[in-house]
């Protein structure tokens, strides 16, 4: 069998048998395929939609098109080499992936992260949250026909990526968060640039609101469209802004504070009815709250080391290699074999821009993890699409999908 015909056979193996059949001329159902390559699906997502006229009667999301087996790859790498792999899962929340993995490994090792490293982590995590929400806001507005929003959002995103480049040398997939702390201390000039951004961001968010919230078209497309109540969301395992839009103030940064989130004063925005408008407002309000956290973390940034001084885990400073034999041995051991982690299992949940991002790590005592699993919020949240868009217009399906904010890299991993 040639590869081409094998590919066709695979396509045909997707059955439509469980779709309801049409009932006479007036109720004829149409099955429409959307994607996998479609700008409105925010990635390589395929939707099989059963339509009655313009009304969505059933929907099947088909995923796996960008499955690259990252979890399998991680099992073949030493712990510190896993970080760049997991960062590529949810490609808009790379700091969060690294944070969840490093947090899990730190729990297994039982090491303390220095306060300065925790604050630096918080600064970068919240910058990443703003960045992720900006991409969401720009592309969602684009789906609703607001072209200019996209450029404004990407302008601010560019500032954040410049900050990432300044602190770590990379714009995306920065590998900044390390086991035991962060890669490097922030460079000179970073704090002034960040302070300027913190000052600017709320006015920018005000401008987005002025552009969108008075706009009749946006309001009609979002208000009372595709609501879903709190209980259904909870039973589906949905977390993050989608759950908060339905009125449940569940946020792991408040409920189970990690990385000194309990030091900061911020609010959890919640919605009331859980429609698309609430989802939009909750994420928009989070832009302000994240800015507040960054401001406080920058002002209260403690002095001290940026990574744990435990030489069994973190690389010794470069200058020590020339003078200390012990440092040289540690350096050699760390870059060749990596550090060993005592056997155990741990599940480390954090609040990503899309909900609970939990990293499960099983260590077997060697220098490579025996299992790495990411509970990616997009993967679970995608299940809420069907109850949300059932009996809604197909145009609202596109708007709702944008408001769910699925990241296919995280869904397929």
């Amino acid at each position, binding site marked *: 069998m040639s*590869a081409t015909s094998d590919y066709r056979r695979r396509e045909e193996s997707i059955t439509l048998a469980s779709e309801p059949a049409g009932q006479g001329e007036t109720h004829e159902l149409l099955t429409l395929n959307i994607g996998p390559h479609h700008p409105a699906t925010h990635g390589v997502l395929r939707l099989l939609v059963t339509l009655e006229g313009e009304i969505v009667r059933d929907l099947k999301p088909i995923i*796996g098109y960008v499955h690259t087996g990252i979890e399998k790859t991680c099992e073949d790498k030493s712990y510190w080499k896993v970080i760049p792999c997991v960062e590529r899962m949810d490609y808009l929340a790379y700091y969060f992936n690294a944070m969840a993995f490093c947090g899990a490994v730190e729990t297994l090792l039982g090491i303390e992260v220095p306060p300065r490293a925790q604050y630096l982590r918080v600064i970068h995590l919240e910058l990443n949250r703003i960045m992720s929400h900006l991409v969401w806001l720009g592309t969602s507005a684009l789906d609703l026909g607001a072209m200019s929003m996209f450029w404004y959002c990407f302008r601010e995103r560019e500032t954040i990526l410049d900050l990432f480049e300044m602190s770590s040398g990379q714009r995306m997939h920065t590998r900044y968060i390390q086991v035991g702390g962060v890669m490097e201390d922030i460079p000179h000039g970073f704090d002034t640039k960040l302070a300027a951004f913190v000052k600017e961001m709320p006015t920018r968010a005000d401008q987005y609101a002025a552009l969108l919230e008075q706009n009749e078209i946006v309001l009609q497309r979002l208000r009372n469209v595709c609501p879903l109540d709190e209980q259904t969301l*909870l039973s589906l*395992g949905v977390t993050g802004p989608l759950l908060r839009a339905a009125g449940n103030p569940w946020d792991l940064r408040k409920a189970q504070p990690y990385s000194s989130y309990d030091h900061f004063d911020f609010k959890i925005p919640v919605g009331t009815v859980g429609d698309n408008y609430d989802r939009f407002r909750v994420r928009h309000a989070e832009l302000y709250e994240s800015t507040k956290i960054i401001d406080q973390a920058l002002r209260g940034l403690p002095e001290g080391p940026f990574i744990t001084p435990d030489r069994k885990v973190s690389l010794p400073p470069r200058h020590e290699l020339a003078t200390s034999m012990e440092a040289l041995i540690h350096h050699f051991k760390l870059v060749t074999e990596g550090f060993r982690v005592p056997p155990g*299992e741990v599940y480390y949940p954090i609040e990503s821009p899309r909900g609970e991002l939990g990293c499960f790590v099983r260590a077997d005592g060697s220098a490579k993890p025996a299992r790495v*699993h990411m509970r990616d919020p997009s993967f679970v949240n*995608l299940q809420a699409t069907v109850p949300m868009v059932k009996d809604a217009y197909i145009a609202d399906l596109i708007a709702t999908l944008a408001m769910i904010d699925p990241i296919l890299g995280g869904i397929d991993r």
Partner: protein
Amino acid sequence: MPDATGLELIAHDLRDADSESVLGTVFMHGRATVIAEPRLVHSVLERLKDRGYGFLASLHGCDYYPEEPRLGVLYELLDMHEVDRISVKARVHVDAAHIASVVDLWPGANHPEREVYDMFGVVFDGHPDLRRILMPEDYEGFPQRRDFPIGGEPVLFTYNEENSYGKWQ
């Protein structure tokens, strides 16, 4: 997390309801795990759900090769009011990898259970639509098992890879 004593109390109550349901408990790194008998895991989860652990945060698989029983299914439960987590683990043998589905308790377990089936080959009895989710429908083998090799596989363009443009080595 419940502390070590709290975990023992929960395990005691679960054993009271059904003496065979709990095989053991592990408390490590602040993580409380109930090791449940795979035949009775559904009732264990149902009792924990009634106890307040009403949110299924995560469901994932794990291969404990070469230990037996090899395959593990882990349920991370969360009590949102007490902010308390507990995990339930059920281990099954590779040749009898069957476990009861919990989609009736948490509809959100649908995709995660399909993922565990896809990656480890654990069959969830009672699942409404147990198909592969991330791998192609006609894929053979369960790639996350520890004895599944890492390596290249033929794709659509492999058959004429040698004479394709850019293949200069």
